[in-house]
């Protein structure tokens, strides 16, 4: 059994839960894996630091909660501060580089993306999370870009597919341009800078 745990965090309104939903859907429906998503509920979900977790496995997920994520997707400083210590030492950090300024451990793979700015350039800030998902798909490589892309298409409101897919593709493209073939080295280099 191999299991990958992911935490996504951001502030309310950024589409954290939808992001978790799309990753889960890509894994569970498109990639025939098991994926259990849990979202944070209650007052903490209505503003400030909002969070969703995913347990992705090739067999049934028996324990639904996560404690030490393998991948940490961060879209706000507050979320980063709240959950940063959980991330496994060799876990992958994926972050919104204009909103989050991480303190990186040595050798920790990390990938930053100006997802808000990219979303703005597409005309709608609201698709920031989908840019992030494209970037996540390309960087974390948990599930294929195609499966993620399909999940985006079938999860966003009808009529917004084109914009969202454009956002997704822009996120992927940013990864390819910035980290490209040599992502390991670049990631490590970024870590060292931190």
């Amino acid at each position, binding site marked *: 059994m191999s299991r990958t745990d992911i935490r996504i965090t951001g502030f309310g309104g950024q589409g954290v839960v939808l992001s*978790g*939903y799309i990753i*889960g*859907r890509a894994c*569970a*429906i498109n990639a025939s894996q*098991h*994926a*259990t*998503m*849990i*979202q944070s*509920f*209650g007052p903490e979900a209505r503003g400030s630091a909002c969070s969703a977790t995913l347990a992705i496995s090739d067999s*049934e*997920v*028996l*324990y*639904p*909660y996560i404690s030490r994520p393998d991948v940490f997707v961060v879209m706000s400083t507050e979320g980063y501060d709240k959950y940063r210590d959980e991330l496994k030492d060799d876990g992958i950090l994926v972050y919104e580089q204009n909103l989050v300024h991480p303190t990186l451990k040595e050798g920790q793979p990390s990938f930053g993306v100006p997802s808000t700015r990219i979303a703005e350039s597409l005309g709608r800030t609201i698709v920031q999370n989908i840019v992030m998902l494209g970037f996540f798909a390309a960087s974390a490589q948990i599930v294929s870009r195609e499966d993620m892309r399909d999940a985006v298409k079938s999860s966003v409101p009808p009529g917004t597919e084109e914009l969202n897919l454009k956002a997704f593709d822009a996120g992927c493209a940013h990864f390819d341009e910035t980290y490209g073939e040599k992502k390991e080295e670049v990631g490590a280099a970024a870590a060292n800078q931190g």
Partner: protein
Amino acid sequence: MKADPAGVLTGAHYLDGDFACGEGAMAAGCRFTAGYPITPSTEVVERISRRFPMMGGTFIQMEDELASMAAVVGASWTGTKCLTVTSGPGFSLMMENIGLGAMMETPLVVVNVQRGGPSTGLPTMTGQADMMQARWGSHGDYRLIALSPQSPQESFDLMIDAFNLSEEYRVPVLFMMDECVGHMTEKVVIPPADEIEIVPRKLTDKPPGEFLPYKANGNGVPEFARAGDGYRFHTTGLTHDERGYPVMSAECQEELIPRLINKITDNVDKISRFDEENTDGADVVLVTYGITARVARMGIDMARKKGVKVGVIRLIVVWPFPEQHIRDLASKIKAFVVPEINLGQMVLEVERCAGGKAETILVPHAGGGVHNPQDICDAILRAAK
């Protein structure tokens, strides 16, 4: 008969347990829901209220859970399949008219997405501490049926069974989910409508003059006449005779109440459902249900690696409890281990049935989370000694 396709969202979905539960109700033919918002169950009625207008269903948000429960009992008497949805605090309020549903023999389903209690407790976090309330919560003697799903997929699948059982035995069926299952999103496959078997309301074919609303058939269950079909029946929460007329006597009570109980207890073998695994030759048998059953499997795997022969009974229908089966097992094993997210509820039933022939060990959890699998493994190791 087969399900009405209007309520069946055939396909593979990524849904949380609450949504899956709502889809299960609609697929089962539910067309009336009354509810009052309460965390962590509200998503069930949110789902239903969004989809009902497209399938001829009616949702009404009532002023409280007393009203919600009364409304579903009333609506069921029009032949409509009815649902209400709540969590612990609302479940307490519903007990009044759950008793009325039992007394009037009204088919309906009540969902309780359990959270930590007592009182307001932990609204957004899980618990399994309403299991005895599901059994004994309303006053007086009665028997109901309760199911407990362990996943969003089961929240869909077992909802169909819940509605079917309520029609078959004319009782309120309690659907004992928990916050963890309710708020967990997983793959849910909804089959085509023609693969979903539905038990319709069993209407009498007797003409109005000859119909007795509480004359039971061989199964202990009376035939049904719905309001507006000319039967002009009378039904009451008072002790009543076969005509449905109040009779204030010990004799009438002696006729009625044992029948209400026996229609469940005499059919335990037909109603009971549990998964059983490796109990043959086991030293220790886990008795578990709901979300805890999933977590427990990790503890079981850990204990098996240490050489313990562990079997599992996972209760799907929790009430009526499979008494005889636990009794039979008790004489063959060393101990039962019962993990549950409460401080000892279903374990009492296991202990009672074990009758001292096997030890019974509780693995408690006060609520707000699920067990650490290691704790379950440790209990199994202790039990095996």
